[in-house]
């Protein structure tokens, strides 16, 4: 689609400002998630503490962007693609804020796990899951930055791999708990971290669905993404 500037420059600036702020919020959340995973795997107590207290910045940004979106709706009454972008931003920051909350939780558990004398080594099982989630989040923010619906569709598909890995870890933890009941407490903490990582994947999937909506104007939530993908491929041909 041809993309012209608005007749009103200020409108362009306002929309661009929302986009940029969402991107910075995404960047901040991404860093928090990465630090949370690192602190967990490397038993880095200082980093874990930093993550557990860094979430207030994310919350602050959510409130600021929300206000920006409210203002642009009240003053400009955006339509079509502009409206979809603003709606996407409003929904996306809710998911980003929740990803921030999950990172904060991982940071808290990581603090406890790092201090435990009983080293179960089970936290290392989270490495693959952590990598998959980090990569999915990175690709999600990239798809938003470039408004790339094809990439967003690809990323939505990644959530299944994350769920599989989460199930594998859960099974593993259950069998270890049965073998060594004295470590149940710390295994539960590992399990909660796995749950938080899995939830981050779900939020990333939501964001990708908003990106597809923003680009194509079609709501793909709760639909079969493979079917949607096929439809768009056939349209492009």
């Amino acid at each position, binding site marked *: 689609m041809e993309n*012209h500037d608005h007749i009103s420059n200020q409108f362009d600036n306002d929309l661009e400002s929302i986009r940029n702020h969402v991107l910075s919020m995404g960047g901040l959340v991404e860093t928090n998630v990465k630090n949370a995973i690192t602190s967990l795997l490397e038993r880095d107590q200082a980093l874990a503490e930093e993550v557990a207290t860094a979430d207030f910045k994310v919350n602050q940004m959510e409130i600021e962007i929300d206000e920006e979106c409210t203002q642009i709706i009240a003053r400009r009454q*955006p339509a*079509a693609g502009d409206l*979809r972008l603003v709606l996407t931003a409003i929904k996306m920051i809710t998911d980003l804020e929740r990803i921030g909350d999950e990172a904060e939780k991982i940071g808290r558990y990581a603090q406890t796990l790092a201090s435990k004398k009983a080293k179960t080594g089970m936290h290392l099982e989270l490495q693959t899951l952590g990598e998959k989630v980090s990569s999915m989040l990175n690709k999600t923010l990239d798809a938003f930055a470039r408004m790339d619906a094809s990439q967003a569709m690809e990323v939505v598909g990644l959530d299944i791999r994350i769920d599989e890995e989460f199930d594998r870890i859960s099974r593993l933890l259950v069998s270890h708990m049965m073998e060594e009941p004295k470590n149940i407490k710390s295994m539960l903490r590992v399990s909660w971290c796995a749950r938080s990582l899995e939830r981050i994947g779900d939020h990333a999937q939501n964001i990708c669905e908003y990106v597809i909506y923003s680009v194509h104007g079609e709501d793909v939530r709760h639909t079969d993404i493979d079917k949607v993908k096929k439809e768009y491929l056939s349209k492009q041909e």
Partner: protein
Amino acid sequence: MEISDNMDLDQEISKTVGSPLLESKVRIACRDVNVFYNKNVQAIFNVNLDIGKNQILAMIGPSGCGKSTLLRCFNRMNDTIEDCVVDGLIELDGENIHSKKIDPVVLRANVGMVFQKPNPFPKSIYDNVAYGPKLHGLTQNNSELDDIVEESLTKAGLWKETKDRLNKPGTGLSGGQQQRLCIARAIAVKPEVILMDEPTSALDPIATATIEELMSELKSTYTIVIVTHSMQQAARISDRTAYFHLGRLVEVDETGHIFTNPIHSLTENYITGRFG
């Protein structure tokens, strides 16, 4: 001819996009309508458009896009403009409005019109409304005429405000009231369609809201076609929206669809306030 200057545009709009109406729901149908002024200036190019029964269709587009010209085709107002030629088929309830059987005066009663500036006759409020029914011989006696005046003013939401001053001049009313008087005048001759050419552009927001509310009530009885420069107004009140650009109908679809996800980039650029 202008057409040669706009080859690119014609390629871009080779076919109007949007979803069509079911045939049973069509009140007015336009097929390949072209309108020329002075033989060498073309104002409307191959417009195919269906207007639904009991619906409000909003026609939007930049100045000079031909929306008012097309509106005036629907009740043959363009007949009154010298050198204006309307080509193509326009049907009202399946009947060609240019057929010899059709009397333009009767057609204009059937397809009423409300203009940008309220234009009551320099007569009393009563006579403004009674003028049409009298002219068309719709009543047998004065009591019937009284009934039509009351009914029309009630439908136009003006009865309560005017019932005690029916003999005062219509021009003494406020702008919004005058516009509602013009709507009452159009309704009095029992039309099927009401055409409105920017009916609220001279009114304040409160009078505008009253007229918009009135339009929503009237659509259960009439088909309404409105030309408006206010996109918010089109979004608020219309069921379908048609976007025109340099005399071409670019896109027509459900209003909700046009304002969230238009198909054509020209429509998108216009409704989002971008330079096309």
